[in-house]
């Protein structure tokens, strides 16, 4: 099956929702990813849980593939790009080089998240708390209460869908057309079911739906077809 991104409309902007879990804003040539959680694996290793030390490389490879497809002018990382403040001490030199290669020739913006208040030293790119472009505000944590034109991360939404053949729990975008919570991009980032109360306060009109990441396609699925955990 050829790759089939979906169109996700936030306010009046048509974003391309890529099945890898990123948004692309064509007019701005901006690629947006959330919650990269680089070096989560080594954070566990420090606690003697030896997860495979390839999560940063995996996320970077997925990101490189997107950069190759869309050739963005700007890459926007929506916070929690690094799993903790000491990630810079653990990241492999090869991964740092791979990141630099991706950053070369384009703007790179690190929005601050709760996990990466301290960014590794010597990192390229601009650091910001939030970013506004046109009618869209980008931030890590979704704001409290109703919002018009907000794209955030932080919550790691997943949808659970049951069909005849079994059940699927997949990462997803959650959106009601004026606000969007992006799926986490990191290889070891867990997921929070979109029926969690944390989403209810963001989408009070209950007219949001899940845009679930399939292998080659993003599927739009109504809320009531998604089950709680």
């Amino acid at each position, binding site marked *: 099956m050829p790759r089939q991104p979906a169109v996700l409309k936030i306010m009046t902007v048509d974003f391309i929702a890529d099945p890898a879990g990123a948004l692309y804003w064509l007019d701005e040539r901006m690629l947006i990813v959330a919650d990269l959680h680089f070096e989560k694996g080594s954070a566990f290793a420090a606690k*003697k849980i030896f997860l*495979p030390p390839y999560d940063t490389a995996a996320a970077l490879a997925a990101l490189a593939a997107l950069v190759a497809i869309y050739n963005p002018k700007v890459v926007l990382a929506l916070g929690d790009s690094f799993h903790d403040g000491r990630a810079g001490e653990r990241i492999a030199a090869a991964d740092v080089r791979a990141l630099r290669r991706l950053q070369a020739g384009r703007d790179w913006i690190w929005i601050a998240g709760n996990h990466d208040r301290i960014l590794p030293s010597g990192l390229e790119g601009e650091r910001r708390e939030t970013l506004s472009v046109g009618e869209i505000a980008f931030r890590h944590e979704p704001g409290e209460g109703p919002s018009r034109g907000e794209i955030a991360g932080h919550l790691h939404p997943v949808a659970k869908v049951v069909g005849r053949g079994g059940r699927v729990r997949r990462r997803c975008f959650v959106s009601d057309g004026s606000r969007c919570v992006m799926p986490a991009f990191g290889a070891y980032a867990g997921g929070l079911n979109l029926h969690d109360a944390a989403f209810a306060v963001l989408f009070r009109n209950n007219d949001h739906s899940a845009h679930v990441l399939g292998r*080659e396609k993003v599927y739009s699925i109504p809320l009531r077809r998604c089950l709680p955990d």
Partner: protein
Amino acid sequence: MKKGQPGPVEALPQRFSAWFSVRGWTPRAHQIELLRSAREGRNTLLIAPTGGGKTLAGFLPALVDFERPPVQRPLHTLYISPLKALAVDVRRNLEIPIAEIGLRVRVETRTGDTSASKRQRQRRDPPDLLLTTPEQLALLLASADSRTLFADLRYVVIDELHAISASKRGDLLSLGLTRLRAIAPGLTAIGLSATVRDPPELQSWLAPQFPRHESAALVVAPPGAPADLSILDTREILPWAGHSARHALGEIYARIRAARMSLVFVNTRAQAEYIFQELWRRNEDNLPIALHHGSLDVAQRRRVEEAMAQGRLKAVVCTSTLDLGIDWGDVDLVVNVGAPKGASRLAQRIGRANHRLDEPSRAILVPANRFEVLECRAAVDAAREGAQDTAIARAGALDVLCQHILGMACAGPFGADDLYFEIVSAAPYARLPRAMFDAALGFVSTGGYALKSYERFAKIKQMKDGRWRVANRAIVQAYRMNVGTIVEADMLKVRLVRGGGGTGAYTGPLRRGGRALGEIEESFIEMLAPRDTFLFGGEILALQGIVEDEALVTRASSDAPKIPSYAGGKFPLSTYLAMRVRRLLSDPREWSALPEQVSDWLRLQQLRSELPGRDNLLVESFPRGGRFYLALYPFEGRLAHNTLGMLLTRRMERAGLKPLGFVANDYALCVWSLADSGAAHPDALLAQDMLGDDLEEWLEEASLMKRTFRNCAIVAGMIERNFIGRNKSSRQVRMSTDLIYDVLRRHEPDHILLQAARADAASGLLDLDRLAGMLARVKGKIVHRVLDRVSPLAVTIMLEIGRESVYGEAQDAILADAAEALIEEAQA
């Protein structure tokens, strides 16, 4: 049996023979033979049927040692059983001879239920005889004082060896045994086993395999009286498919009423629930009929066992939880509902009736559908011949090896060479290459990755003298929390609450704090919608909601549950029985032993299509309702058929046949498609190379593989058991081992944990070994019949369509379905 042994009187001390006479017994030849062999220091395997005085025989060598109590009282004998209930039961039975002979022996049990203070005391002041489980042994061996505790150990008695040897628990136990031998070189191992097909395998298991391959001595008891076995010849119409045995319940009830005490064995928990409920519906005489299965609350299970032992029950409906040799009461009838799935399993269950060798055990088999009649017939014939299933020789599991290495580091510093030679003396690990051992050691130390980035976080480290030791005490703590090889499915507590939840709200504000009824698989509950009803603990319950790790339920007023039983059987049909079923099918002269309904059905199949042969593979294709069906009859068990179904649908997809789904049971497999599969070439579709690239490609995504990986990761100690549990705070994010699997598979496909998972999948859930054997067997012998309508044999498998969910990896298809439903709604 060996000849020319001296008579019983010479071997048995006078007090013992006197005790036998007072009881009116004569010591049996195999009891005396085992006693002599073990007292001479030979590792010995005793094979005896149930009721052969097996347990007493196992303890005789130890008890005779206490004829004259030793001055010092260190731990003398260790008894290990796969079930903690068995340990408790054996202790009860041992105390009688000990008291009556007047021996001064202290016997204690040590299981997961033993209090911490008692466990501590047992290490300081051990009993003479300690009865325990493989997991507890591993814990004892992983402690710093293990060398003093076991220094003078004389015997280790391993009960139900046939049930445990070919499993991961058996692997763990075999490794424990090698450590016991290293601590106490004079140790003698005694294995107790039911009849097995291949005793030499167990004889090797019991004896050291390094520096040279040894084999335990063999003592075989004479077989018991032949069982009185019959198949229920129903007057009702035999169902074509399904597992409910609803047609036979009236007849089962009548048999229960006529017997003293009956055990009604079924294959799954859901079946147990159903049969129990249906029996009570017919129970006009108010017979005390109880239910026993692994998901019920422990206290409730103990109550049932007690009532059985006291003879207060008329019947117990049970699953394999009562398979093993627990002597609960005076059972005189065993009813096996559904097919027994294996010849040895049936023998074990039959043995539950009449624990006396000289009386025949009485058992009735109740087939639930037509294929099961064939299987029951084959099983009865096998039992009459005393035939057993082929044991599955297997290499020791790598995840268990990793767990053991960490345990040994917890016990104290070790040299890699010493530990390696210790480990290869265990039969399952006798062929373990040194490089694999080193990989396991690397895994335990730092995860064993090619990218050596975790060296500074190592769990075990090399000291200056080259020996390995744990980095800190916290590692020992973590090991103790994670010991064992059984990884439970995710379970939810089932709790009874009053009243319903809010309307439509799934996790509404329910009042909690009601009675816990037991535990149920999360995967089952997840298939239910709120207010769906299901059977549990003999009651119809309605799901009200899931709150954290509990399924909240209310009693339902309906008299039939909405969600029916879901699985056919837990155990796949054994290779040996499958062979016998094929033989029975292919030879019409043998059909006279079958009920008329069944032989008529087979004759009709002969007429409309043909019968599967002994060695060939029958493939039928026919159209029905706008779709095309391909039915295959490999008789290789449900797991192998599911795997075949996954691979076959991939191939059909490529061949442009547009397969839509498939269904498999123990006997057959049916694939339906949009394009005409009659034009297909089964020879090409089923070529042996389907186990090459197709398999690799599919395994990458297979959820079974992911589940297997998760279990290996837990057993090997990569992640802790509670790593992925439900979070108390629902705000927390759940991380799945699937993510770890995906990353590892892409970046280090040869990692030891992936090797462990593949090996498990090959012999376990995917049954690849069996599938490979079948493909080789039928090569060039595939018979393809193109029919114009469904054949009589195919009806049975067609009826399962929709009953059991399609075993699909087509996850995106589910998403697409859900998305399409949205579009339909929008257009309506």
